[in-house]
Structures are given as structure tokens and as C-alpha cells.
């Protein structure tokens, strides 16, 4: 056989890299890279069935701030209609209580690591109530303002003490800051305020 040495012609493989790149790009674009973002919250554990009429925990009036969102998406803060942009400052003032106002939450001395004895409005509660007809966007808006108020307070104290933003602190430092400004948002058991469902 004279033609023993004939080879099959090799396929030009230089473009297969391009094809693979195109596949790669396709997957990169179609797969949702966007990380889910949201407002994290914790729900209270369910009320046990057998103690339906649990007595309400007695909260002193000065420690309580009621934020109500009604069906018309208006924000009522302690029975006053306010603009949502005012809410953050109201909450900050309420939680911080800078002048030790007697209508604002009482301050209790707490021993906080890194800080020593601090006066903390430990017992304050922000009660967030909403109607069944409230729009979700309004509710998220209020939740957002509350989170913003706490974040700003925590950032301020972190900057003052450690010279860094709250998010950049070590875990223990963060815990200490959280002890100074504990996030206490209570969501009431659902009730039907407006009448119309």
C-alpha cells in the first residue's frame, strides 16, 4: 500500500475557543447574577395556642412610640400625621433621647464592652402597626426609615468611638454598638382598623 501514510486532515480548532467564549458570555448574561437584597427582619415566635389571652406586657407610655400606616398610606406617629421624611429624625430623637426628656424613653445604665457604663434607652419600643389595606410600598418605606434611623445612630456612635462606620467594625464591636442602640420594632398582631378589607 503506497498511501499508507495519508493522514486525515486535522480540523482547524482555533475558533472553538471563540465558540466557547460565546457560550460563556451567554450564560453570564442569562443567569441572574443579581444578588437578592432586602430588609432583614425577625418575626416573634408564635403565640402558643393555649394562652390566647396573654396579658399584654406593660410598657410605660414614655417608652412607646406608635407608628401607624393607614389605608391611605399616611404615616401616623403617636396619632399625628407626619410626612415619611420626618419619620427618621423622629425615631432617632426618640431612640437617642439626647436631652433626657421625661416624655422620651427612660435611660438605664448598662455596662457595655469597649464603652463602659452607658445610658441606654433599653426599654424603648417602636410599635409598627398597619392596616390590611396599606400598600406594601408604604410599609417597606416605613421599615426602611426605621432601619435608616437605627443605622445612622449606630454609625454615629461607631465613628465617634472607633473612627469607622458600623459595617466595618469587628463582630464584638458591632455587638457592643447594638447593645447601645438595640433595634426594638414590635409589629402588632394584625387587626382590622379601617373596616373595609
Amino acid at each position, binding site marked *: 500500500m503506497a498511501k499508507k501514510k495519508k493522514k486525515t486532515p486535522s480540523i482547524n480548532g482555533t475558533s472553538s475557543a471563540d465558540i466557547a467564549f460565546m*457560550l460563556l458570555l451567554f450564560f453570564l448574561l442569562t443567569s441572574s447574577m443579581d444578588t*437578592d*437584597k432586602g430588609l432583614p*427582619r*425577625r*418575626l416573634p415566635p*408564635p403565640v402558643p395556642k393555649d394562652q390566647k389571652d396573654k396579658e399584654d406586657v406593660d410598657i410605660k407610655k414614655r417608652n412607646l412610640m406608635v407608628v401607624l400606616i393607614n389605608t391611605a398610606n399616611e404615616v401616623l406617629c403617636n396619632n399625628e400625621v407626619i410626612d415619611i421624611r420626618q419619620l427618621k429624625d423622629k425615631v432617632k430623637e426618640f431612640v437617642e433621647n439626647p436631652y433626657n426628656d421625661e416624655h422620651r424613653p427612660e435611660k438605664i445604665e448598662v455596662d457595655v464592652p469597649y464603652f463602659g457604663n452607658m445610658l441606654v434607652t433599653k426599654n424603648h419600643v417602636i410599635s409598627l402597626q398597619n392596616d390590611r389595606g396599606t400598600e*406594601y*410600598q408604604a410599609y417597606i418605606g416605613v421599615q426602611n426609615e426605621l432601619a435608616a434611623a437605627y443605622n445612622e445612630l449606630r454609625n454615629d456612635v461607631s465613628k465617634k468611638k472607633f473612627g469607622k462606620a458600623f459595617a466595618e467594625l469587628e463582630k464584638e464591636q458591632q455587638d457592643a454598638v447594638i447593645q447601645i442602640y438595640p433595634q426594638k420594632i414590635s409589629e402588632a398582631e394584625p387587626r382590622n382598623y379601617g373596616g373595609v378589607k
Partner: protein
Amino acid sequence: MGKFNKSGGREMPELNTSSLPDLVFAFLFFIMMVTSMREVTLKVIFKAPQATELQKLEKKSLITFVYIGQPVPELRAQMGSETRVQLNDQIAEISEIQDYIAQEKSSMKEEDQPFMTVSIKADSETKMGIVTDVKQALREAYALKLSYSAKQRIN
């Protein structure tokens, strides 16, 4: 010295690119593993509300999604335009949430179960009534870590 004469016609040796596709494929597989392919077909329309104080959700495997919104136009004939809840791939009733959460929980590793997070993806125009019902159901199911999914607001 014959060895070093320049008459040999020096050319740039060609780079062997035959393994390049393999490299790219390896990269491709890496991307495919890392990105979550957990794409469910949405049967409800939702437009996320906007907020500024957002936090990223960390581990995708720990997150269960609950979608709330109006059914997509194709399903309007069957479902009507009432706001509905979607769990996984089908539209469900609120009473089914508890079972769904329990099922999702049991499919997780035991040490991960306390960190299970439920991400509520609700339409911004949803009424709070249905969201409250979902929240109550989640409380009953002991899925207490929540995240209200939202988009970053651009000022």
C-alpha cells in the same frame, strides 16, 4: 559555531491554543456552579418596592422565596386578578405555606435549619393584608428570619 548562526530563519513559535477551549469551559462550569440557577417561572407579576437600607442575602441555599402579586396575564382567565401567593412553581393558598416551609426546612441540612431565611418578594402595590397573612403563617411555621426583598432606590 554552527549552533548559533542566524540563518535558521527565526520565527515566533506559534502558541498552542488547542487547550484554550478547555480553559474556557472550565471557567464556564465555574460560573454555572456559582450563579444560582434557581430560576422559577414566575406566575405572579411583581415589581419590587424601593428602599435604601438594604442588606445582601448571603447564602442562596438557605433562602426560600415567597412571591406575592397578581397572576400573570396568561393565568388571569383561571385565577382572576386577585393578588396571589406563589410558592416554588405554583400558585398556592396561604394555608399551604406552613407545609411548604416545613418541606423546605426538612430538605436542608440540619445545622443550616436555624439560619433559614424567607425572602418575601411582593409587588409594591400589594395590600398589606395578604402580606400579614403570609407573615402569620411563617410565624406558625417557625420560619422567623425574614427579608423583604426590595430594590435599591436611586436618588
